[in-house]
């Protein structure tokens, strides 16, 4: 989309209320669009029960009844029709999901009318405000934001099938133990050993082995050798998976659900480690994977939920691709490494709140590495409870340039929100506070973070 900045009204305090300005904005704006299908507004409520997503007449089912809000200026809307006008009539304006201010049924009804082509810019903006919890659209939204699903809805089935079968192939390739591999190699080479299976007596026939493939082999190409070299990583992954979110039934416990979820996490991490020999597995990756898997597994669409493992794998890869450098120890001191990211946070704090910065870094000598390291590498999953961290991730993932910028702003906002306590504290109490960040209103936190972004303007 051609929009450069976010218009002022979008950032206004209207968002804090429970009404839905953008919905009515688009409704009224849509009414102005030169659409051949009948006017959407009067029909909106009537059409809502229809599940058919292709019904052209109703892009914005948001009932026009809720608009005591003055009409915001149309400028946001007109840029869109020109791009879509060339398409045939089935095209509907972008899906309008103003979340978290609406009742949940409204939103799910809107979801039914998902556009043929998702307007990703619009989606990002809306997602940055938070996705409502009960509607079950978070799974799809995250997949769109991470680029797993293509923007054109027509291609979803295709893409999903392709990716899922690719994951299946990965599983077969990487999760086999050497015994099975040896057996498959043998079968493909056509060796048969029927004589041994009969009841015959006698000395057992010895057969040659190929390519030095025996369990004690020290050869570099031996599957056995590679297997043993990886056991250390696999053990590490297993330990971490067992420790993921021990308070959640979903992840931990004796139920078969927990066990199958843990196994899925394990598979994903093992395959990732094997596909990325440069970075392998680093402790903490399980924490980044957990929310993704949780959201996808709880997708109300049973079909999607069944393939949560495959989807989570690809989204995990995508998410981590921006953060790989944080996990690579050798890059710690480099320009892209974690140290430099932490110093960026420091700079950001200095710019927005010099007094706090001075107090923290100089007076009390709280080195940001002590608290920010975990905030940044684990994308704030450890600082808030699970539900809150999902909201934060909505905002992080909606950043078109990758989550890092938003992440730093949120971290800065976290510091600013407790500034009174920090300014009053010394090294010990500040560190304690920051390492056990108190529970806050997440919406407020995201709002402050957003303001930081707006005012710095690039």
């Amino acid at each position, binding site marked *: 989309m051609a929009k450069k900045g976010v218009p002022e009204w979008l950032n206004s305090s209207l968002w804090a209320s429970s009404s839905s300005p953008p919905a009515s904005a688009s409704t009224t704006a849509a009414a102005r669009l030169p659409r051949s299908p009948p006017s959407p507004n009067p029909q909106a409520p009537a059409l809502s029960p229809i599940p058919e997503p292709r019904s052209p007449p109703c892009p914005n089912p948001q009932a026009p009844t809720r608009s005591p809000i003055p009409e915001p200026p149309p400028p946001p809307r007109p840029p869109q029709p020109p791009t879509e006008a060339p398409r045939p009539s089935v095209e509907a304006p972008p899906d309008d999901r103003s979340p978290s201010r609406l009742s949940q049924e409204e939103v799910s009804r809107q979801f039914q009318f998902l556009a043929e082509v998702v307007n990703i810019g619009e989606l990002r903006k809306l997602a940055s405000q938070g996705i409502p919890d009960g509607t079950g659209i978070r799974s799809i939204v995250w997949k769109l934001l991470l680029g797993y699903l293509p923007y054109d809805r027509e291609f979803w089935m295709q893409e999903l099938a392709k990716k899922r079968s690719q994951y299946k192939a990965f599983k077969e390739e990487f999760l086999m133990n050497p015994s099975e591999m*040896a057996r498959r190699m043998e079968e493909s080479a056509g060796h048969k050993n029927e004589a041994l299976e009969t009841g015959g007596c006698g000395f057992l026939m010895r057969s040659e082995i190929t390519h030095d493939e025996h369990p004690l082999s020290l050869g570099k190409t031996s599957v056995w050798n590679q297997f043993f070299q990886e056991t250390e990583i696999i053990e590490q992954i297993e330990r971490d998976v067992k420790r993921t979110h021990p308070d959640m039934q979903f992840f931990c416990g004796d139920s078969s659900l927990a066990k199958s979820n843990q196994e899925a996490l394990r598979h994903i991490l093992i395959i990732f480690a094997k596909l990325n020999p440069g970075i392998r597995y680093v402790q903490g990756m399980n924490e980044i994977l957990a929310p993704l898997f949780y959201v996808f597994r709880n997708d109300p669409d049973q079909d999607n939920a069944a393939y949560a493992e495959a989807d989570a794998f690809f989204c995990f890869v995508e998410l981590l691709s921006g953060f790989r450098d944080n996990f690579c120890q050798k890059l710690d001191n480099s320009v892209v490494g974690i140290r430099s990211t932490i110093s960026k946070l420091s700079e950001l704090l200095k710019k927005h709140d010099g007094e706090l910065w001075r107090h923290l870094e100089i007076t009390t000598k709280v080195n940001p590495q002590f608290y920010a390291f975990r905030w940044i590498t684990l994308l704030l999953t450890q600082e808030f409870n699970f539900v809150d961290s999902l909201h934060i991730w909505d905002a992080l993932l909606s950043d078109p340039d990758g989550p890092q910028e938003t992440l730093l702003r949120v971290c800065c906002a976290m510091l600013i929100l407790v500034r009174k306590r920090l300014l009053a504290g010394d090294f010990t109490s500040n560190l304690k506070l920051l390492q056990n960040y108190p529970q806050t209103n997440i919406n407020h936190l995201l709002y402050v973070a957003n303001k930081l972004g707006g005012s710095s303007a690039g």
Partner: protein
Amino acid sequence: MVLVLAIGDLHIPHRAPDLPAKFKSMLVPGKIQHILCTGNLCIKEVHDYLKSLSPDLHITRGEYDEDVRYPENKTLSIGQFKLGLCHGHQIVPWGDLDSLAMLQRQLDIDILVTGHTHQFKAYKHEGGVIINPGSATGAYSSMTYDVNPSFVLMDIDGLRVVVYVYELIDGEVKVDKIDFKKTATTQSAH
């Protein structure tokens, strides 16, 4: 996929100073889950070395072992298989397959691991399989001086066992394998 090492008749220090270097370089900790040692180690240092290779070590008494507390026979279950261990000097005639088969039926096991003859053997009969890993150091036996160092590694995977035979012939390690399956027979009461 369980790796079981069958090894024995080392006769350290009386008849051989140590395992061949090439065997030692292959036997590293962390790979093997169980060790079945037929006996005649003979001293504690060898016991400690084997213990370092795997936490689960089973030894039966050979006639020259210095530790008298090892049992004469041992049986254990690994996966779907029942394995038995005995040094073999008690079974007369030494190395006679029918006599060993009697011991196997007596212990009611699928795989019997014995030693004493210092010759590798793998023999199948109706009751099961007898494996003799030979002498890992190539020490001379009561019957012959012509002994190649050898040991056996079994890969037990479900109902299938792949037996890898490691032999040192003319200074080179030669590895062969033997494949066999156990038919899923019902347990017979006796």
